[in-house]
Protein backbone atom coordinates (compact mmCIF):
# COMPACT_ATOMS: atom_id res chain seq x y z
CA UNK A 1 0.00 0.00 0.00
CA UNK A 2 2.74 2.34 1.03
CA UNK A 3 4.80 1.51 -1.95
CA UNK A 4 1.82 1.99 -4.21
CA UNK A 5 1.05 5.49 -3.04
CA UNK A 6 4.71 6.34 -3.25
CA UNK A 7 4.86 4.99 -6.74
CA UNK A 8 1.73 6.92 -7.56
CA UNK A 9 3.36 10.13 -6.45
CA UNK A 10 6.55 9.37 -8.25
CA UNK A 11 4.77 8.40 -11.42
CA UNK A 12 2.17 11.22 -11.60
CA UNK A 13 3.64 14.31 -9.91
CA UNK A 14 2.00 16.66 -12.33
CA UNK A 15 -1.43 15.16 -11.90
CA UNK A 16 -0.99 15.17 -8.18
CA UNK A 17 -0.18 18.84 -8.28
CA UNK A 18 -3.08 19.65 -10.59
CA UNK A 19 -5.42 17.72 -8.33
CA UNK A 20 -4.45 19.92 -5.43
CA UNK A 21 -4.79 23.09 -7.47
CA UNK A 22 -8.21 22.08 -8.65
CA UNK A 23 -9.33 21.33 -5.12
CA UNK A 24 -8.15 24.71 -3.92
CA UNK A 25 -9.88 26.45 -6.81
CA UNK A 26 -13.12 24.69 -5.93
CA UNK A 27 -12.79 25.78 -2.35
CA UNK A 28 -12.21 29.34 -3.45
CA UNK A 29 -15.24 29.22 -5.70
CA UNK A 30 -17.26 27.87 -2.81
CA UNK A 31 -16.10 30.72 -0.68
CA UNK A 32 -16.89 33.25 -3.36
CA UNK A 33 -20.31 31.74 -3.87
CA UNK A 34 -20.88 31.89 -0.17
CA UNK A 35 -19.96 35.56 -0.08
CA UNK A 36 -22.16 36.30 -3.08
CA UNK A 37 -25.03 34.48 -1.45
CA UNK A 38 -24.64 36.46 1.75
CA UNK A 39 -24.46 39.84 0.06
CA UNK A 40 -27.56 39.22 -2.01
CA UNK A 41 -29.62 38.54 1.06
CA UNK A 42 -29.71 42.15 2.25
CA UNK A 43 -29.63 45.61 0.74
CA UNK A 44 -26.58 46.61 2.79
CA UNK A 45 -24.14 44.00 4.04
CA UNK A 46 -21.08 44.87 6.13
CA UNK A 47 -18.28 42.39 6.72
CA UNK A 48 -16.82 43.40 10.03
CA UNK A 49 -14.93 42.34 13.11
CA UNK A 50 -16.36 42.90 16.56
CA UNK A 51 -13.10 44.33 17.91
CA UNK A 52 -12.40 46.59 14.92
CA UNK A 53 -13.06 50.26 15.59
CA UNK A 54 -13.22 51.36 11.96
CA UNK A 55 -15.97 48.75 11.50
CA UNK A 56 -17.78 50.38 14.39
CA UNK A 57 -17.42 53.74 12.61
CA UNK A 58 -18.95 52.30 9.43
CA UNK A 59 -21.87 50.79 11.33
CA UNK A 60 -22.41 54.15 13.05
CA UNK A 61 -22.43 55.92 9.70
CA UNK A 62 -25.27 53.82 8.31
CA UNK A 63 -27.07 53.94 11.63
CA UNK A 64 -26.85 57.75 11.62
CA UNK A 65 -28.40 57.79 8.15
CA UNK A 66 -31.23 55.57 9.28
CA UNK A 67 -30.14 52.63 7.14
CA UNK A 68 -30.58 49.05 8.32
CA UNK A 69 -27.58 46.90 7.68
CA UNK A 70 -26.74 43.23 7.99
CA UNK A 71 -23.46 42.86 9.79
CA UNK A 72 -21.33 39.75 9.42
CA UNK A 73 -18.79 39.54 12.24
CA UNK A 74 -16.00 37.48 10.72
CA UNK A 75 -14.22 36.91 14.00
CA UNK A 76 -17.32 35.11 15.21
CA UNK A 77 -17.69 33.00 12.09
CA UNK A 78 -16.06 29.60 11.87
CA UNK A 79 -15.09 30.24 8.28
CA UNK A 80 -14.22 33.88 8.95
CA UNK A 81 -10.57 33.63 7.97
CA UNK A 82 -11.33 32.20 4.54
CA UNK A 83 -14.01 34.79 3.94
CA UNK A 84 -11.57 37.53 4.81
CA UNK A 85 -9.14 36.09 2.27
CA UNK A 86 -11.89 36.02 -0.34
CA UNK A 87 -12.69 39.66 0.34
CA UNK A 88 -9.04 40.58 0.06
CA UNK A 89 -8.99 38.90 -3.33
CA UNK A 90 -12.10 40.80 -4.39
CA UNK A 91 -10.55 44.09 -3.39
CA UNK A 92 -7.24 43.10 -5.02
CA UNK A 93 -5.25 43.98 -1.92
CA UNK A 94 -2.83 42.19 0.37
CA UNK A 95 -3.54 44.06 3.61
CA UNK A 96 -6.41 43.43 6.00
CA UNK A 97 -9.37 45.29 4.65
CA UNK A 98 -12.19 45.24 7.16
CA UNK A 99 -14.75 46.72 7.07
CA UNK A 100 -16.04 45.87 3.60
CA UNK A 101 -19.50 46.92 2.49
CA UNK A 102 -21.80 45.64 -0.29
CA UNK A 103 -24.84 47.61 -1.37
CA UNK A 104 -27.55 45.96 -3.46
CA UNK A 105 -25.39 42.87 -3.82
CA UNK A 106 -22.56 44.83 -5.42
CA UNK A 107 -19.16 45.57 -3.92
CA UNK A 108 -18.65 49.13 -2.74
CA UNK A 109 -15.41 48.71 -0.82
CA UNK A 110 -13.71 49.88 2.36
CA UNK A 111 -14.28 52.93 4.55
CA UNK A 112 -12.43 55.36 2.32
CA UNK A 113 -14.48 54.42 -0.76
CA UNK A 114 -17.66 54.73 1.28
CA UNK A 115 -16.70 58.18 2.58
CA UNK A 116 -15.76 59.32 -0.92
CA UNK A 117 -19.18 58.18 -2.21
CA UNK A 118 -20.96 59.90 0.64
CA UNK A 119 -19.13 63.21 0.21
CA UNK A 120 -19.61 63.33 -3.56
CA UNK A 121 -23.29 62.65 -3.11
CA UNK A 122 -23.53 59.26 -4.81
CA UNK A 123 -24.15 57.17 -1.69
CA UNK A 124 -27.74 58.27 -1.07
CA UNK A 125 -28.97 57.47 -4.62
CA UNK A 126 -27.21 54.11 -4.38
CA UNK A 127 -28.96 53.31 -1.12
CA UNK A 128 -32.32 54.39 -2.50
CA UNK A 129 -31.78 52.21 -5.54
CA UNK A 130 -31.05 49.21 -3.32
CA UNK A 131 -34.14 49.92 -1.29
CA UNK A 132 -32.20 50.60 1.89
CA UNK A 133 -33.30 54.22 2.13
CA UNK A 134 -36.62 55.86 1.53
CA UNK A 135 -37.24 59.56 1.24
Amino acid at each position, binding site marked *: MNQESVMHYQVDPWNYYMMRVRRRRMEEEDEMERVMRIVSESAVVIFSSSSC*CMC*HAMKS*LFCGMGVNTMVHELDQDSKGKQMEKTLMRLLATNSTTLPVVFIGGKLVGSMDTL*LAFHVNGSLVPLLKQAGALWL
Partner: protein
Amino acid sequence: MVCYRGVLKGDLLDVRISSSGMNSPSAQFVSSRRMSVYDPIHQINMWGEGFKSNGNLSASLPLIDEADLKFDSSQSEDASHGILGTSHKYDQEANRPIDKIQRRLAQNREAARKSRLRKKAYVQQLESSRLKLMQLEQELERTRQQGMYMGGGLDSNNMCFAGPVNSGITAFEMEYGHWVDEQNRQISEMRNALNAHIGDIELRILVEGMMNHYAEIYRMKSAAAKADVFYVMSGMWKTTAERFFLWIGGFRPSELLKILGPMIEPLTEQQRLDIDNLGQSCQQAEDALSQGMDKLRQTLADSVAAGQFIEGTYIPQMASAMEKLDALVSFVNQADHLRQETLQQMSRILTIRQSARCLLALGEYFQRLRALSSLWSNRPREPA
Protein backbone atom coordinates in the same frame (compact mmCIF):
# COMPACT_ATOMS: atom_id res chain seq x y z
CA MET B 1 67.55 74.41 48.57
CA VAL B 2 64.86 75.39 46.32
CA CYS B 3 61.95 73.05 45.97
CA TYR B 4 59.87 72.82 42.93
CA ARG B 5 56.39 71.54 42.60
CA GLY B 6 54.60 71.72 39.35
CA VAL B 7 51.16 71.15 37.96
CA LEU B 8 50.67 70.33 34.33
CA LYS B 9 48.20 72.68 32.72
CA GLY B 10 47.60 71.84 29.08
CA ASP B 11 50.77 72.32 27.20
CA LEU B 12 52.31 74.67 29.64
CA LEU B 13 53.71 73.89 32.97
CA ASP B 14 52.76 76.01 35.88
CA VAL B 15 55.63 75.88 38.22
CA ARG B 16 55.14 76.63 41.81
CA ILE B 17 58.24 77.88 43.41
CA SER B 18 58.70 78.07 47.11
CA SER B 19 62.01 79.01 48.47
CA SER B 20 63.11 77.73 51.76
CA GLY B 21 66.41 79.40 52.14
CA MET B 22 68.77 80.52 49.42
CA ASN B 23 72.08 78.74 49.87
CA SER B 24 72.83 78.21 46.27
CA PRO B 25 73.99 80.80 43.84
CA SER B 26 71.88 79.45 41.11
CA ALA B 27 68.35 78.40 40.76
CA GLN B 28 67.20 76.16 38.11
CA PHE B 29 63.88 76.57 36.47
CA VAL B 30 62.55 73.74 34.55
CA SER B 31 59.75 73.95 32.15
CA SER B 32 58.40 70.66 30.96
CA ARG B 33 56.38 71.72 28.06
CA ARG B 34 55.60 68.53 26.30
CA MET B 35 55.79 66.14 29.19
CA SER B 36 52.60 64.24 29.73
CA VAL B 37 53.68 62.77 33.01
CA TYR B 38 55.14 65.03 35.57
CA ASP B 39 56.80 63.60 38.59
CA PRO B 40 57.63 66.34 41.06
CA ILE B 41 59.78 64.18 43.26
CA HIS B 42 61.85 62.99 40.32
CA GLN B 43 62.43 66.55 39.20
CA ILE B 44 63.63 67.61 42.57
CA ASN B 45 66.19 64.83 42.61
CA MET B 46 67.43 65.74 39.16
CA TRP B 47 67.91 69.30 40.14
CA GLY B 48 69.59 68.24 43.34
CA GLU B 49 72.14 66.32 41.25
CA GLY B 50 72.63 69.17 38.88
CA PHE B 51 73.24 71.29 41.91
CA LYS B 52 75.95 69.14 43.32
CA SER B 53 77.96 69.21 40.13
CA ASN B 54 79.01 72.79 40.78
CA GLY B 55 75.93 74.53 39.57
CA ASN B 56 76.31 73.05 36.17
CA LEU B 57 73.46 74.61 34.30
CA SER B 58 72.58 72.27 31.52
CA ALA B 59 72.23 74.30 28.40
CA SER B 60 69.73 71.83 27.02
CA LEU B 61 67.17 72.66 29.68
CA PRO B 62 65.07 75.60 28.57
CA LEU B 63 64.63 78.20 31.21
CA ILE B 64 61.31 79.65 32.28
CA ASP B 65 60.65 83.24 31.48
CA GLU B 66 59.09 85.62 33.93
CA ALA B 67 56.11 86.05 31.65
CA ASP B 68 55.26 82.37 31.79
CA LEU B 69 55.26 82.36 35.54
CA LYS B 70 52.76 85.18 35.46
CA PHE B 71 50.36 82.65 33.85
CA ASP B 72 49.38 81.75 37.36
CA SER B 73 49.03 85.08 39.09
CA SER B 74 49.09 83.65 42.59
CA GLN B 75 52.69 82.65 42.26
CA SER B 76 53.96 85.49 40.15
CA GLU B 77 55.12 87.46 43.17
CA ASP B 78 57.25 84.62 44.49
CA ALA B 79 58.53 83.77 41.02
CA SER B 80 59.64 87.23 40.05
CA HIS B 81 61.43 87.62 43.36
CA GLY B 82 63.26 84.42 42.71
CA ILE B 83 64.27 85.31 39.19
CA LEU B 84 65.31 88.85 39.94
CA GLY B 85 67.32 87.69 42.83
CA THR B 86 69.06 85.10 40.72
CA SER B 87 69.82 87.16 37.64
CA HIS B 88 71.27 89.84 39.83
CA LYS B 89 73.65 87.29 41.20
CA TYR B 90 74.57 86.14 37.70
CA ASP B 91 75.70 89.59 36.70
CA GLN B 92 77.81 90.03 39.76
CA GLU B 93 79.64 86.71 39.84
CA ALA B 94 80.09 85.23 36.35
CA ASN B 95 82.18 87.89 34.56
CA ARG B 96 84.53 85.44 32.94
CA PRO B 97 82.22 83.32 30.83
CA ILE B 98 80.45 86.43 29.53
CA ASP B 99 79.83 84.89 26.12
CA LYS B 100 78.42 81.81 27.69
CA ILE B 101 76.08 83.87 29.73
CA GLN B 102 75.15 86.07 26.82
CA ARG B 103 74.41 83.00 24.77
CA ARG B 104 72.41 81.56 27.59
CA LEU B 105 70.45 84.76 27.94
CA ALA B 106 69.79 84.79 24.24
CA GLN B 107 68.59 81.26 24.39
CA ASN B 108 66.47 82.22 27.30
CA ARG B 109 64.93 85.07 25.43
CA GLU B 110 64.31 82.84 22.46
CA ALA B 111 62.66 80.17 24.56
CA ALA B 112 60.63 82.78 26.35
CA ARG B 113 59.48 84.24 23.06
CA LYS B 114 58.52 80.83 21.77
CA SER B 115 56.74 80.09 24.99
CA ARG B 116 54.79 83.32 24.77
CA LEU B 117 53.78 82.51 21.20
CA ARG B 118 52.66 79.05 22.21
CA LYS B 119 50.65 80.45 25.06
CA LYS B 120 49.03 82.99 22.75
CA ALA B 121 48.11 80.27 20.29
CA TYR B 122 46.65 78.13 23.04
CA VAL B 123 44.57 80.96 24.42
CA GLN B 124 43.31 81.84 20.94
CA GLN B 125 42.33 78.24 20.39
CA LEU B 126 40.43 78.26 23.68
CA GLU B 127 38.62 81.45 22.71
CA SER B 128 37.55 80.17 19.32
CA SER B 129 36.38 76.89 20.82
CA ARG B 130 34.35 78.81 23.36
CA LEU B 131 32.81 80.88 20.59
CA LYS B 132 31.98 77.76 18.60
CA LEU B 133 30.41 76.17 21.65
CA MET B 134 28.24 79.21 22.19
CA GLN B 135 27.15 79.17 18.55
CA LEU B 136 26.31 75.48 18.71
CA GLU B 137 24.28 75.98 21.85
CA GLN B 138 22.39 78.83 20.23
CA GLU B 139 21.68 76.75 17.16
CA LEU B 140 20.51 73.88 19.29
CA GLU B 141 18.16 76.14 21.18
CA ARG B 142 16.87 77.60 17.94
CA THR B 143 16.17 74.24 16.34
CA ARG B 144 14.56 72.99 19.49
CA GLN B 145 12.33 76.03 19.54
CA GLN B 146 11.53 75.61 15.88
CA GLY B 147 10.64 72.02 16.49
CA MET B 148 8.23 72.96 19.23
CA TYR B 149 6.94 76.23 17.91
CA MET B 150 6.72 75.60 14.19
CA GLY B 151 4.54 78.01 12.33
CA GLY B 152 3.55 80.06 15.31
CA GLY B 153 6.40 82.11 16.67
CA LEU B 154 7.37 81.91 20.31
CA ASP B 155 4.67 80.18 22.22
CA SER B 156 5.41 79.16 25.75
CA ASN B 157 2.25 77.11 26.07
CA ASN B 158 3.55 74.33 23.86
CA MET B 159 4.31 71.01 25.46
CA CYS B 160 7.83 69.70 25.36
CA PHE B 161 8.57 67.05 22.76
CA ALA B 162 9.77 64.28 25.03
CA GLY B 163 11.47 61.08 23.95
CA PRO B 164 14.19 60.18 21.42
CA VAL B 165 14.49 62.29 18.29
CA ASN B 166 12.19 60.91 15.58
CA SER B 167 13.72 61.47 12.17
CA GLY B 168 10.35 61.08 10.44
CA ILE B 169 8.90 63.85 12.56
CA THR B 170 11.93 66.11 12.20
CA ALA B 171 11.69 65.72 8.45
CA PHE B 172 7.98 66.48 8.58
CA GLU B 173 8.53 69.66 10.59
CA MET B 174 11.10 70.93 8.14
CA GLU B 175 8.85 70.16 5.21
CA TYR B 176 5.92 71.81 6.96
CA GLY B 177 7.91 75.02 7.30
CA HIS B 178 8.45 75.02 3.54
CA TRP B 179 4.79 74.11 2.99
CA VAL B 180 3.59 77.14 4.96
CA ASP B 181 5.94 79.43 3.04
CA GLU B 182 4.61 78.11 -0.26
CA GLN B 183 1.05 78.40 1.03
CA ASN B 184 1.57 82.06 1.92
CA ARG B 185 3.04 82.70 -1.50
CA GLN B 186 0.08 81.04 -3.23
CA ILE B 187 -2.38 83.03 -1.13
CA SER B 188 -0.74 86.32 -2.10
CA GLU B 189 -0.70 85.24 -5.72
CA MET B 190 -4.40 84.33 -5.62
CA ARG B 191 -5.31 87.63 -3.95
CA ASN B 192 -3.47 89.62 -6.59
CA ALA B 193 -4.97 87.53 -9.38
CA LEU B 194 -8.54 88.05 -8.16
CA ASN B 195 -7.96 91.78 -7.69
CA ALA B 196 -6.52 92.01 -11.18
CA HIS B 197 -9.59 90.18 -12.59
CA ILE B 198 -7.59 87.65 -14.58
CA GLY B 199 -9.35 85.20 -16.89
CA ASP B 200 -10.84 81.86 -15.92
CA ILE B 201 -8.15 79.82 -17.64
CA GLU B 202 -5.32 81.36 -15.65
CA LEU B 203 -7.44 81.23 -12.51
CA ARG B 204 -7.97 77.51 -12.99
CA ILE B 205 -4.20 77.00 -12.96
CA LEU B 206 -3.94 78.80 -9.63
CA VAL B 207 -6.89 76.86 -8.18
CA GLU B 208 -5.41 73.53 -9.22
CA GLY B 209 -2.06 74.63 -7.79
CA MET B 210 -3.63 75.27 -4.40
CA MET B 211 -5.58 72.01 -4.48
CA ASN B 212 -2.41 70.08 -5.27
CA HIS B 213 -0.67 71.88 -2.43
CA TYR B 214 -3.32 70.63 -0.01
CA ALA B 215 -2.89 67.12 -1.41
CA GLU B 216 0.79 67.52 -0.58
CA ILE B 217 0.19 68.22 3.12
CA TYR B 218 -2.03 65.15 3.40
CA ARG B 219 0.70 63.02 1.86
CA MET B 220 3.16 64.45 4.36
CA LYS B 221 0.78 63.84 7.26
CA SER B 222 0.27 60.24 6.20
CA ALA B 223 4.00 59.60 6.33
CA ALA B 224 4.30 61.44 9.66
CA ALA B 225 1.43 59.36 11.11
CA LYS B 226 3.44 56.23 10.43
CA ALA B 227 6.40 57.78 12.23
CA ASP B 228 4.44 59.02 15.25
CA VAL B 229 0.66 58.89 15.21
CA PHE B 230 0.29 60.70 18.53
CA TYR B 231 2.23 63.63 17.15
CA VAL B 232 -0.17 63.92 14.22
CA MET B 233 -3.27 63.33 16.36
CA SER B 234 -2.30 66.15 18.72
CA GLY B 235 -1.50 68.53 15.87
CA MET B 236 1.86 69.29 17.42
CA TRP B 237 3.12 71.16 14.37
CA LYS B 238 0.22 73.61 14.47
CA THR B 239 -0.09 76.85 16.42
CA THR B 240 -2.16 76.98 19.61
CA ALA B 241 -5.21 78.63 18.08
CA GLU B 242 -5.27 76.07 15.27
CA ARG B 243 -5.00 73.26 17.79
CA PHE B 244 -8.03 74.58 19.66
CA PHE B 245 -10.18 73.53 16.70
CA LEU B 246 -8.46 70.18 16.28
CA TRP B 247 -10.42 67.10 15.26
CA ILE B 248 -8.43 63.93 14.57
CA GLY B 249 -5.27 65.72 13.61
CA GLY B 250 -6.76 68.56 11.56
CA PHE B 251 -9.69 70.83 10.83
CA ARG B 252 -13.32 69.70 10.94
CA PRO B 253 -14.74 69.84 7.38
CA SER B 254 -18.32 70.71 8.42
CA GLU B 255 -17.10 73.62 10.56
CA LEU B 256 -15.06 74.95 7.69
CA LEU B 257 -18.03 74.80 5.33
CA LYS B 258 -20.05 76.88 7.78
CA ILE B 259 -17.31 79.51 7.92
CA LEU B 260 -16.67 79.63 4.18
CA GLY B 261 -20.35 79.57 3.18
CA PRO B 262 -21.04 83.31 3.46
CA MET B 263 -17.80 84.14 1.63
CA ILE B 264 -18.76 82.45 -1.62
CA GLU B 265 -22.09 84.16 -2.15
CA PRO B 266 -23.89 84.58 -4.45
CA LEU B 267 -24.87 80.96 -5.10
CA THR B 268 -27.44 79.43 -7.40
CA GLU B 269 -30.24 77.40 -5.88
CA GLN B 270 -28.68 74.16 -7.05
CA GLN B 271 -25.36 75.17 -5.57
CA ARG B 272 -27.00 76.08 -2.30
CA LEU B 273 -28.66 72.66 -2.18
CA ASP B 274 -25.44 70.88 -3.05
CA ILE B 275 -23.50 72.76 -0.39
CA ASP B 276 -26.14 71.88 2.20
CA ASN B 277 -25.97 68.21 1.23
CA LEU B 278 -22.20 68.32 1.40
CA GLY B 279 -22.37 69.83 4.86
CA GLN B 280 -24.77 67.15 5.99
CA SER B 281 -22.64 64.34 4.58
CA CYS B 282 -19.55 65.76 6.25
CA GLN B 283 -21.36 65.99 9.57
CA GLN B 284 -22.50 62.38 9.32
CA ALA B 285 -19.05 61.15 8.34
CA GLU B 286 -17.46 63.11 11.17
CA ASP B 287 -19.91 61.68 13.68
CA ALA B 288 -19.20 58.16 12.46
CA LEU B 289 -15.44 58.61 12.72
CA SER B 290 -15.82 60.23 16.14
CA GLN B 291 -17.80 57.24 17.34
CA GLY B 292 -15.12 54.93 16.03
CA MET B 293 -12.54 57.00 17.92
CA ASP B 294 -14.58 56.74 21.12
CA LYS B 295 -14.64 52.98 20.78
CA LEU B 296 -10.90 53.00 20.16
CA ARG B 297 -10.25 55.05 23.29
CA GLN B 298 -12.43 52.72 25.31
CA THR B 299 -10.81 49.51 24.11
CA LEU B 300 -7.34 51.02 24.49
CA ALA B 301 -8.13 52.07 28.05
CA ASP B 302 -9.44 48.58 28.77
CA SER B 303 -6.31 47.02 27.30
CA VAL B 304 -4.05 49.17 29.41
CA ALA B 305 -6.13 48.79 32.57
CA ALA B 306 -6.46 45.03 32.23
CA GLY B 307 -2.71 44.65 32.13
CA GLN B 308 -2.23 46.04 35.59
CA PHE B 309 -4.35 43.67 37.56
CA ILE B 310 -3.83 40.30 35.95
CA GLU B 311 -0.33 39.06 36.56
CA GLY B 312 1.33 37.13 33.77
CA THR B 313 -0.94 38.63 31.11
CA TYR B 314 0.58 42.10 31.24
CA ILE B 315 2.72 41.64 28.16
CA PRO B 316 0.03 40.16 25.90
CA GLN B 317 -2.22 43.07 26.87
CA MET B 318 0.44 45.53 25.78
CA ALA B 319 0.59 43.75 22.43
CA SER B 320 -3.13 44.26 21.90
CA ALA B 321 -2.78 47.88 23.04
CA MET B 322 -0.09 48.37 20.40
CA GLU B 323 -2.47 46.94 17.79
CA LYS B 324 -5.03 49.54 18.77
CA LEU B 325 -2.47 52.23 18.07
CA ASP B 326 -2.19 50.93 14.51
CA ALA B 327 -5.94 51.48 14.21
CA LEU B 328 -5.30 55.09 15.24
CA VAL B 329 -3.19 55.57 12.10
CA SER B 330 -6.11 54.45 9.94
CA PHE B 331 -8.41 56.96 11.66
CA VAL B 332 -5.99 59.80 10.98
CA ASN B 333 -5.82 58.72 7.34
CA GLN B 334 -9.61 58.53 7.03
CA ALA B 335 -10.03 61.98 8.57
CA ASP B 336 -7.52 63.46 6.12
CA HIS B 337 -9.25 61.58 3.30
CA LEU B 338 -12.55 63.20 4.35
CA ARG B 339 -10.93 66.67 4.36
CA GLN B 340 -9.50 66.17 0.92
CA GLU B 341 -12.77 64.79 -0.52
CA THR B 342 -14.65 67.77 0.93
CA LEU B 343 -12.30 70.24 -0.74
CA GLN B 344 -12.62 68.42 -4.05
CA GLN B 345 -16.41 68.28 -3.87
CA MET B 346 -16.44 72.03 -3.13
CA SER B 347 -14.40 72.67 -6.26
CA ARG B 348 -16.88 70.56 -8.25
CA ILE B 349 -19.93 72.43 -6.99
CA LEU B 350 -18.49 75.93 -7.41
CA THR B 351 -17.45 77.83 -10.51
CA ILE B 352 -13.78 78.54 -11.01
CA ARG B 353 -14.05 82.07 -9.71
CA GLN B 354 -16.03 80.93 -6.68
CA SER B 355 -13.48 78.17 -6.00
CA ALA B 356 -10.68 80.70 -6.20
CA ARG B 357 -12.41 83.00 -3.69
CA CYS B 358 -13.16 79.99 -1.49
CA LEU B 359 -9.54 78.79 -1.45
CA LEU B 360 -8.32 82.32 -0.80
CA ALA B 361 -10.73 82.66 2.13
CA LEU B 362 -9.63 79.27 3.47
CA GLY B 363 -5.94 80.17 3.27
CA GLU B 364 -6.48 83.58 4.86
CA TYR B 365 -8.54 82.02 7.65
CA PHE B 366 -5.62 79.81 8.68
CA GLN B 367 -3.19 82.69 8.33
CA ARG B 368 -5.31 84.67 10.77
CA LEU B 369 -5.45 81.76 13.19
CA ARG B 370 -1.65 81.59 13.14
CA ALA B 371 -1.43 85.34 13.62
CA LEU B 372 -3.82 85.08 16.56
CA SER B 373 -1.63 82.43 18.18
CA SER B 374 1.36 84.68 17.76
CA LEU B 375 -0.41 87.74 19.15
CA TRP B 376 -1.66 85.77 22.10
CA SER B 377 1.71 84.35 23.05
CA ASN B 378 3.43 87.71 22.68
CA ARG B 379 0.84 89.70 24.55
CA PRO B 380 2.20 91.82 27.43
CA ARG B 381 1.68 89.85 30.57
CA GLU B 382 0.98 91.43 33.91
CA PRO B 383 3.66 90.74 36.50
CA ALA B 384 2.50 88.07 38.93
